[in-house]
């Protein structure tokens, strides 16, 4: 915001040739345009997901069973409730109740925090059993390779080492961790299958980008919360609350589609 524009608590900051109503509607329209680009951003990922789900239906089904739908459902409820409180915060701002805006936004941001904590547990579990991209992987490959007689550069090498390093020569593969979690053969096989990688690659892209949006949303709402605690909003001026809430609702909207697609649909 332009520092030349004077900010008086409760009064909208805007240049003199603009009315506050003009500025409000312009800002809101701009926000909706931005949200449109966000929809397009996620559309690409949803489209990729549709293509590969079509191609590898069985693998996608099995891979989705590796996710804990209870955690997904918890996060869905958390985001819906936080969206509700964000809407109430905007309503409170429309009534000029700064204190209520602050409290409701604090609650909303806390819900975002809960969402991220649950997400952390989900990600770390997958990390533990090796469902993540980008590391060269140990014994699973040896197991999977033993039947194939693949000898990309292994034949002349000696024994176990050849099995480990040379079996499947892939630049991108799924490790198995320390195997303390007692992976079944099927799960091990899943870890080296390219088609499962496709599922988890998309899973990380979609939920990762969404989590990034949650973090940005939390930052934006924290800032709005700070403004509210300074008594900046009134019946005449609550644009930041509304735009921040709009962004948060979009984050909720995306998750409403991600949850059934990734966790539930078989």
């Amino acid at each position, binding site marked *: 915001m332009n520092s030349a524009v004077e900010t008086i608590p409760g009064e909208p900051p805007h240049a003199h040739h603009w*009315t506050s*109503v*003009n500025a*409000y*509607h312009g800002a*809101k*329209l701009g926000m*909706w*345009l931005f*949200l*449109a*680009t966000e*929809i*397009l951003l996620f*559309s690409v990922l*949803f*489209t990729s997901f*549709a*293509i590969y789900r*079509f*191609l590898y*239906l*069985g693998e996608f*089904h*099995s891979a989705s*069973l590796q996710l804990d*739908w209870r955690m997904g*459902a918890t996060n*869905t*409820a958390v985001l*819906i409730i936080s*969206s*509700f409180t*964000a*809407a*109430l915060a905007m*309503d409170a701002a*429309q009534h000029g109740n700064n204190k209520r805006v602050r409290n409701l936004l604090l609650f909303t941001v806390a819900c975002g925090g809960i969402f991220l904590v649950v997400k952390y547990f989900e990600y770390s579990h997958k990390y533990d059993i090796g469902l993540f991209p980008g590391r060269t992987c140990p014994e699973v490959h040896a197991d999977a390779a033993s039947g194939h007689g693949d000898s990309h550069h292994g034949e002349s090498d000696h024994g176990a080492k050849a099995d480990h390093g040379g079996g499947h020569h892939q630049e991108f593969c799924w490790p198995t961790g320390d195997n303390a979690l007692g992976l079944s*053969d*099927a*799960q091990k*096989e*899943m870890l080296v*299958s*390219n*088609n499962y990688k496709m599922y988890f690659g998309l899973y990380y892209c979609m939920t990762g980008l969404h989590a990034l949006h949650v973090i940005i949303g939390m930052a934006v709402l924290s800032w709005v919360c700070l403004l509210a605690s300074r008594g900046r909003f009134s*019946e005449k001026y*609550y644009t930041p609350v*509304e735009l921040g*809430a*709009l962004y948060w*609702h979009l984050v*909720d909207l995306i998750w*409403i*589609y991600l*949850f*059934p*697609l990734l966790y*539930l*649909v078989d």
Partner: protein
Amino acid sequence: MSSHADTHGDGHDELGHILPFSTYRNVLIGLLVLTVLTVVVAKVDTFDFGTLNIVIAMIIASIKASIVALYFMHLKYEDKITWLYVFFPLLLLALMMGLIFIDNPLRRDDRPVEIHDPLAQQLEALQ
């Protein structure tokens, strides 16, 4: 303020619409009920509709998304240009998805990688 409003003539003579608390509350209840419904339809075996499962899940998700947009985001009270902004990306998404649904079933036999589903096989063996 009203003297400025006269020059617009496009309904922009006031700030946003104020909704009663009951609207927000009802939307919240509706969203939570629909979330439970999604889980039940997906996880309880008596509601297995085969390939229709994903269609049902997406319809429920779209109902949820619609009421979030209409009431939480006040889209219901926005003007036509905002609706255009919302529907243009959705139109593009529908176009992409539609072409995939036309294209993919016709090229299933061309795919280079065989369907290989060890987990499903294991489940089958157990049953």
